[in-house]
């Protein structure tokens, strides 16, 4: 059987790469996808390049229409790239049909086969690979145990709840022991509590199976909490790839900074460089030291970002980065959001932890804002 052969080859390839070490499982090289032709052509993916490593939890994050699902479909084989290479353990699989790729998918709507039982669904992949019946049966039981669904093996898929269907979909995709598991917004149909549970469950499964997960989501919180690395996408392009920390603390593009968490943007001009950090003179006249994206030396006018929790509101007159007047205060229990209108006219938001020692400021108070060291970042644009 064709698919079984490919699968075995891939396994051997895995052995080889393990010796080489550090080589990526999935390598997306300069991939573009254009739908339609001529004037109606739409570029869904624009020269995307990503390398994903062994046992990595990799997330494609972006708003709807950013190309993340298109990219996932290319990796699964439901569609082919217009140009570029798609490599699995070094082998180009861009034109391989989906049934010949050792890659399985958890679909957004689960796509469980309605005319089969839970057990038959989970065993389908192995059965198609031509594995002996006994092996399939044993593996189905093992998988159902892994997702804690063994008691529902003989149920119809229409008789189980959404959360249970989700688990069956996971078990079904994991059963053939794919090299890569693709997850297309698998948690979006679940309610909040179940979603939190499944997030932990997914991390556990990834850890226990050692499989590379590629996870698609538009939910930035989900991406931050679950991923080893995140690729932020917009308009068919990858804007930034990095760990949750890097993406959050060191955004390189305005879109990334805006899409993930809340952020303050300030305009300024590069005044100099000290120890690899830029000195930026803001419109208010104050000078801030700001980190810069790697391999880039911005000049002239730049935009800097400062996360709201990387600054403090301090009493007027104390040492501070800039000053302004409080325009609004929103209390959140664990923290308080201060909206400050700076003297330069810009709006600035500070998220301050509520501790017993923290000072409280009323609307209309003149205050100073102290920015933490190394908190400001210059954007690429």
């Amino acid at each position, binding site marked *: 059987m064709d698919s079984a052969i490919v699968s075995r080859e891939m396994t051997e390839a895995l052995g080889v790469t393990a010796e080489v070490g550090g080589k990526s499982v999935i390598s997306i090289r300069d991939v573009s996808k254009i739908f339609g032709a001529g004037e109606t052509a739409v570029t869904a993916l624009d020269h995307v390049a990503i390398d994903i490593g062994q046992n990595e939890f990799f997330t494609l994050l972006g708003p709807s229409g950013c190309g993340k699902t298109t990219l996932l479909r290319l990796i699964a084989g439901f569609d082919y790239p217009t140009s570029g290479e798609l490599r699995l353990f070094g082998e180009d699989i861009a034109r391989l049909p989906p049934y010949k790729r050792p890659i399985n998918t958890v679909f957004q709507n689960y796509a469980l086969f309605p*005319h089969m039982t839970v057990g038959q669904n989970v065993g389908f992949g192995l059965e*198609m690979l031509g594995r002996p019946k006994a092996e399939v049966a044993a593996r189905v039981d093992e998988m159902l145990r892994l997702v804690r669904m063994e008691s529902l093996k003989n149920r119809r898929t229409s008789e189980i709840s959404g959360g249970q269907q989700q688990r069956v979909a996971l078990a079904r995709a994991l059963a*053939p022991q794919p090299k890569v598991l693709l997850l297309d917004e698998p948690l979006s149909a679940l309610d909040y509590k179940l979603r939190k549970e499944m997030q932990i469950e997914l991390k556990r499964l990834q850890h226990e199976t050692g499989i590379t997960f590629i996870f698609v989501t538009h939910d930035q919180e989900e991406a931050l909490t679950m991923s080893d690395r995140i690729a932020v996408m917009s308009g068919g392009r990858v804007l930034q790839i990095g760990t949750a920390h890097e993406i959050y603390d060191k955004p390189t593009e305005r879109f990334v900074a805006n899409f993930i968490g809340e952020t303050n943007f300030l305009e300024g001009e590069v005044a100099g460089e000290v120890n690899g950090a830029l000195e930026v003179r803001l419109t208010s006249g104050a000078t801030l030291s700001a980190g810069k994206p790697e391999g880039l030396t911005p000049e002239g006018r730049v935009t800097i970002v400062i996360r709201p929790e990387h600054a403090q509101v301090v009493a007027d007159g104390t040492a501070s980065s800039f000053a302004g007047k409080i325009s609004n205060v929103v209390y959140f229990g664990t923290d308080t959001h201060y909206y400050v209108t700076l003297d330069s006219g810009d709006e600035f938001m500070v998220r301050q932890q509520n501790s017993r020692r923290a000072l409280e400021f009323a609307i209309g108070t003149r205050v100073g804002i102290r920015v933490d060291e190394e908190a400001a970042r210059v954007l690429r644009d």
Partner: protein
Amino acid sequence: MARTRPPVDTKQQPGFATMAAICLVLLYGPILVLMVFSLNSGKIVMHWEGVSLHWYAVAFQDADFHSAAKNTMIIAVTATVVSTAAATLAAIGMTRVRPWKGLTAAFMVINLPLMVPEIVTAVATLSFFALIAGAFGINLGIGNLIIAHTVFCIPFAYMPIRARLEDMDLTLDHAAADLYAPPWKTFRRITLPLLVPGIMSGAALAFIVSFDDFTITQLVAGPGQTTLPLFIWNQIRRPMTPEVNAISTILLSVSILLVAVSFLITRRRR
């Protein structure tokens, strides 16, 4: 109960009950009368004398009825099987493929027979077979009827199958392919089983349409190729007896039974 009411409740409109009653009586009254009079013991069709199954016995012993029933079954079953198979392939070829040039045209060609007046199709079919018989000396006998029925059954079988295919979630096919099923296995293990209710409806529809076709059959049928509708037609041209009622009732029962069976199969499959 916090049920939202529709803005206009049709049932509350004045005259609703009367209209409904008139419609029901017009629809089912004649059929009911026909069924009741099939139990008449007298000789004259609309003159009631007493309750009896006499005319059913007469019908069942009528050799012409037997031959007509046999012809009908041969034609209807063959036409149903062939037309449903063709319709299934057509529906798959027109929904599960990349859009191809001429797709819309093909769709129209398949459905056009539904728009053509049946008498036109009948005359055309008759001329066609006459031409073939004249030019090549080919006469397939009852085969002519089977071909004619198969052809006009296809659009009827096609409709429900296509509807079912269009309703079907395409990601199921993707999921099967993702789980190592090549296209043929995806079709056999996923698409086909899920399509069965549509195929059953299509087949039931095709069967009924063939079973009670009169116009085309009347023109195309040669001597000795009498089907049930033709048999009844011949009966009422003679002095009518309640045998016609009995036979009609039998026909009706077969139709209802078939529809009921296909309905039950469809429901169980869900």
